[in-house]
């Protein structure tokens, strides 16, 4: 009985801690967003830092996005090809692959990869700066850490995630085309016609809108956990884990919410 009670209270306590952490995160990240929004319009503007971050967060992520998108397109083609073949629907593969990649898998998978690479990097970098008092030094030297650290990263991801998603969409569809031709014997001209030309502008725009939101989520989550890192190197590790887990969960959950909202909006 005692053990059961202890177990119950432990569970209760850890649930409470998770809830407090969650409330902290929600409040803190909204505060950070608000402070960043206000600081965005104040001088000085660090264009050089923005360019550096676009390169470091965006361009350098292109290889993992490429591999993810290519593999996804190829796997989708194979799975749908063999699945639909049983019902004589093999020729629908280009449409299914194109639509899934453009609306869902391109944005979500590329952003999950970006969250893993870039979100972790942002938190580790800012977290290390925090525990070594470099952020205090930025403030003590009369400059604003939000302007120097947060805004360039948020803007860079807002700019680069949609671009990377367009890249992922094209690579994914190409991967599907390659496998469809090699394994399912679907001619590339037919694939291209079916996959690209049957897509609507709204399919593309939905994916891009989602990606911009995911980019904002990754950057704000990474910066929030970095700026609130405490406790030395161990703290940096914990913050980095929290940052990746939180941004990945937010991407998956918000993807469902946005998809549902777009469905309602598009059906009208």
């Amino acid at each position: 009985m005692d053990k059961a009670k202890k177990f119950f209270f432990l569970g209760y306590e850890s649930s409470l801690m998770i809830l407090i952490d969650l409330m902290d995160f929600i409040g803190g990240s909204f505060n950070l967003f608000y402070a960043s929004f206000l600081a965005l319009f104040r001088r000085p503007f660090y264009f050089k830092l923005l360019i550096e971050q676009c390169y470091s967060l965006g361009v350098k992520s292109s290889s993992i996005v490429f591999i993810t998108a290519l593999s996804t397109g190829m796997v989708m083609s194979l799975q749908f090809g063999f699945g639909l073949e049983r019902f004589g629907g093999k020729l629908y593969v280009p449409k299914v692959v194109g639509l899934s990649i453009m609306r869902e898998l391109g944005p979500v998978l590329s952003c999950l990869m970006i969250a893993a690479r870039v979100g972790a990097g942002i938190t580790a970098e800012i977290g290390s700066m925090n525990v070594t008092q470099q952020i205090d030094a930025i403030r003590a030297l009369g400059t604003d850490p939000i302007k120097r650290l947060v805004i360039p990263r948020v803007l860079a991801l807002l700019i680069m995630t949609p671009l990377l998603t367009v890249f992922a969409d094209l690579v994914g569809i190409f991967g599907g085309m390659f496998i469809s031709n090699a394994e399912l014997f679907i001619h590339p001209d037919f694939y291209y016609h079916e996959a690209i030309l049957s897509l609507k502008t709204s399919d593309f725009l939905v994916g891009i809108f989602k990606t911009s939101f995911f980019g904002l989520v990754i950057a704000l989550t990474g910066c929030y956990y970095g700026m609130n890192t405490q406790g030395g190197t161990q703290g940096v590790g914990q913050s980095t884990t929290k940052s990746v887990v939180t941004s990945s969960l937010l991407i998956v959950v918000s993807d469902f919410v946005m998809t549902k909202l777009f469905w309602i909006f598009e059906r009208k």
Partner: protein
Amino acid sequence: MREKVEKKPLIEIRGIHKRFGNKIVHGGIDLDVYPGEVLALMGGSGCGKSVLLRMIVGLEKPDRGTIKFNGQHIETLSEDKLVPIRKKIAYVFQYGALFDSFSVEENLAYPLREHTDLNEHQIHNKVTTTLDKLGLRGSEKLYPSGLSGGMQRRVGVARSIIMNPEVILYDEPTTGLDPFNTQQILKIMLHLKQTGATSVLVTHDMHAIFSVTDRVAFLKDGQILALGTRDEIKNSPIREVSSFIHGESY
């Protein structure tokens, strides 16, 4: 001492209260810092010396009480409004807090690029002159990871004084340094004192306290237990103070 008392304080600290969770760090601290003096804050670990120092530059806000610099309240100012104050008050961090993605030259150039209209040539000259003063010539292109602990502290001091601040706050600048680097830091502090800069120093280093300071404040249990000239503190009849100075338990 009498002269200093008659001067108007540059920094006025009144009734400062601060707590972190259940721990009361400051329980009503009053302190004045006069222009041109070197004041040391002394006390056991965790007595709130560094927190007090951080409050003077606005890195920490008191729960209650006021801090004035040149008659202007600091505790109520937003980060934006603190910028002009922070140009006048430099903070030397315990381990230098150098930006590790910047070279030594870039670290020193940082405040100049942010707050002055100097061109790159003028910035380079000013950086070189400052590094010369601190015996760091030749380290311009090095990164903090390639510097010894003592050099990192000296670069930290160089970055803090490059804007010619009125006040310099030192947070344990000599802790853990070898005698050579300790001596170098003390020399810099003495030099700055001669140029008329006001300094507040947090340290456990008795040699530093009794060689460069004018006055010493001893903190204990969130209060200032003793305040006086370095000789008054050295010969203090208060048991806690004399025990602390002589490294005995108190």
